């Protein structure tokens, strides 16, 4: 980032040197640190995925041993969930944008923000240590008694890694909540907040209320393995299903940690790309809270065939239906926002369109699974695998990529290749559907998940899926190329390249260390495009 026109005092080069980055308390730099780390973990997780899909090209388990295969999908799940998707949007875009969007100079606790990154790195290192000292083969769900008694792999180490990373997540959530409550600029009332802030706020609630429970849960497993204590051990009368309750008490809400920030990004992007007030602002805002709260009441839908009481199943099933409603409300509001908008065909829109289709499919197949009688046939099959990839890869990552492109000029001060981004969006969309749609069909036919070998008659669909994964990988590798390129050769970005509304677009790209030179006072609602003409592009 040597040449031209960046403001000399941008946060990127205010203090120089590696130490100034590793000890920074600037939320924007920490966001960049996170960006780099999660990209690495995405690539690692993707590498494991490639291993999975290669094995599944043939029905016989002939490429890897079954042990290795089990480690591959376990580590794929663990890395993608705990080290990529959970921190992805909040810790990068959220970290960068939350303070700016509300007119603050930083998050409430800058030092804690840095600590949270270090915890993430330590947790990740410990987990990687587990990978190299025996791996991990429990599935990302760590089900007991397999994890606590039976598995021969480095479960204890991995559990401690996840435990530590949990605190990183807790601290980020805590920081965001306090920031939203206490750091808003004068005039930035709750109903003037950008919807991205609302959704990150809701996410943070889930983080601080749920994450401690997964922390203690994996700690109990580690203690059971390492210290000989017994919590879930059937030989001592322990109930393995209790572990599942504890695990899903966090891990269901955690799926909303993964999607809510994405929903926030989509709200921002829809408004900016259509230059229009988000349809039903308060419904979209409150639906985030509704998802966060109701999301805590449905975890039992992962236990429908686990020998949980069927009456508990009833309760969890009906609340699962209810939690789908706020997502429906959001989907329709985004669609309605496009109506009579002025829709740009620049690349962020392409990611948004992809998100809308894939998220809807992913969400609706969740409703299949939440239906009590149907879940019995579909659970633990590839139908579930397809469901969650549709939401997490098709939904959350699509949103993340859209957001990353949209705010890239602000974060780096550089414009990227719009054509590159569009190509990548199309590749991802096509590759994604090719990879995961056949899995719905496989799932309905009964192909169990976590299978290293499968009956011959399912090969065609599996090959399709593996080919799709190749296209998908290309789609994800491409941005790596042109975004990196843009850092060195990209045109300098103006303060407001999209002609969008929002405090972040009023300051230079990239911003200065404390974001705003003077105090900010807000006097209009978010997405106030109607009186716009004279304002944009400063």
């Amino acid at each position, binding site marked *: 980032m040597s040449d031209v026109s960046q403001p000399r005092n941008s946060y990127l080069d205010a203090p120089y040197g590696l130490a100034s980055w590793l000890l920074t308390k600037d939320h924007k730099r920490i966001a960049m640190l996170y960006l780099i780390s999660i990209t690495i973990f995405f690539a690692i997780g993707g590498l494991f995925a490639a291993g999975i899909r290669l094995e599944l090209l043939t029905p016989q388990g002939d490429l890897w041993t079954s042990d290795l295969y089990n480690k591959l999908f376990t580590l794929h799940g663990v890395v993608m969930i705990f080290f990529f998707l959970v921190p992805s949007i909040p810790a990068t875009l959220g970290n960068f944008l939350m303070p700016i969007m509300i007119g603050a100079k930083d998050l409430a606790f*800058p030092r804690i923000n840095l600590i949270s990154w270090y915890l993430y790195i330590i947790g990740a290192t410990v987990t990687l240590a587990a990978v190299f000292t025996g791996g991990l083969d429990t599935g990302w769900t760590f089900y007991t008694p397999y994890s606590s008694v039976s598995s021969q792999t480095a479960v204890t180490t991995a559990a401690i890694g996840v435990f530590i990373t949990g605190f990183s997540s807790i601290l980020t959530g805590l920081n965001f909540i306090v920031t939203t409550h206490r750091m808003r600029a004068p*005039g930035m009332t709750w109903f003037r907040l950008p919807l991205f802030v609302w959704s990150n706020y809701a996410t943070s609630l889930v983080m*601080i209320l749920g994450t*401690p429970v997964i922390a203690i849960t994996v700690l109990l497993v580690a203690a*059971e393995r390492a210290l000989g204590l017994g*919590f879930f051990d059937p030989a001592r009368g322990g109930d393995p299903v209790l572990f599942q309750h*504890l695990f899903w008490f966090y891990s269901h809400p955690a799926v909303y940690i993964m999607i809510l920030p994405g929903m926030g990004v989509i709200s921002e992007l829809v408004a900016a790309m259509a230059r229009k007030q988000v349809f039903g602002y308060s419904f979209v805002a409150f639906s985030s809270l509704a998802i966060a709260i109701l999301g805590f009441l449905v975890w039992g839908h992962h236990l429908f065939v686990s020998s949980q009481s069927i009456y508990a199943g009833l309760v969890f099933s009906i609340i699962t239906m209810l939690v789908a409603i706020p997502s429906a409300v959001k989907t329709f509001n985004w669609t309605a926002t496009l109506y009579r908008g002025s829709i740009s065909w620049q690349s962020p829109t392409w990611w948004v369109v992809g998100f809308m289709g894939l998220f809807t499919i992913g969400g609706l197949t969740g409703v299949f699974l939440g239906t009590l009688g149907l879940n019995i046939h579909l659970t633990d099959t590839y139908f579930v695998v397809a469901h969650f990839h549709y939401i997490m890869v098709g939904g959350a990552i699509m949103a993340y990529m859209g957001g990353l492109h949209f705010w890239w000029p602000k974060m780096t001060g550089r414009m990227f290749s719009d054509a590159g981004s569009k190509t990548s969006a199309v590749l991802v969309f096509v590759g994604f559907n090719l990879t995961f749609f056949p899995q719905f069909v496989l799932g309905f036919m009964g192909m169990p998940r976590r299978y290293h070998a499968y009956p011959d008659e399912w090969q065609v669909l599996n090959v399709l899926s593996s080919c799709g994964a190749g296209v998908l990988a290309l789609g994800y590798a491409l941005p790596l190329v042109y975004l990196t390129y843009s850092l060195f050769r990209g045109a300098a970005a103006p303060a407001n390249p999209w002609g969008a509304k929002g405090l972040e677009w009023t300051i230079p790209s990239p911003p200065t260390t404390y974001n705003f030179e003077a105090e900010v*006072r807000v006097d209009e609602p978010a997405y106030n495009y109607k009186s716009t003409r004279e304002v944009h592009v400063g």
Partner: protein
Amino acid sequence: MQGTVSAHDGGHDAHAHNPNLQHHFYSMEQQLEASTLGMWLFLVTEVMFFGGMFLAYLIYRVIYPEAWILGSNHLNVAMGALNTGVLICSSLTMALAVRAAQTSNRGAQIRYLLLTMAFGSVFLIVKYFEYAEKFEHHLVPGRHFDMTLPQAGQQQLFFSIYFMMTGIHAIHMIVGLGLMLVILTMAWRGRFSASYYTPIEMSGLYWHFVDIVWIFLFPLLYLLGAHYSAH
């Protein structure tokens, strides 16, 4: 757009020169409110953290009521009660230490902090003796557990939960003592006064929280079987 950038006071002037005001806050008021909220949120995460263990306790107690009573009968109620008293004393001295900061009384701060730490240490020492006793009686789950006890398996569950909960509580006490050491040095240097005492106040919240956990652990673990032994 919204960024009508203006010079706005926001209480800026009143505290502008307080050396304890961090750059990204506008006022001491805002800084204090942020810390308080942050601390309480942190305590909520602690509630959920211990909550996971309380859930395990609750469920197994529902399934194995008898084993729970048997297990609880092995605990030393007198020591548990003593420790409850000790912790309550430490909470009082902690509250008084914060009060001493509010009234800018450096000597009292130091005195009360030292007392708090003393009580905390007594708690840990008593705990040590309790643990030692459990080791001796083969009540530590695992290979050496006394399998001749009735419902030995289920009692192991009870003791697993007992050791996990009290163990993590004890770790919190140790962390608390470390925290107190930091606060003590700060108090020593006269950092706290009526105009700024956030760190001591926040540490106090933490200390009281750890006390509250024990307030629940004591009846749930120790007193459960007391009326049986009294017969």
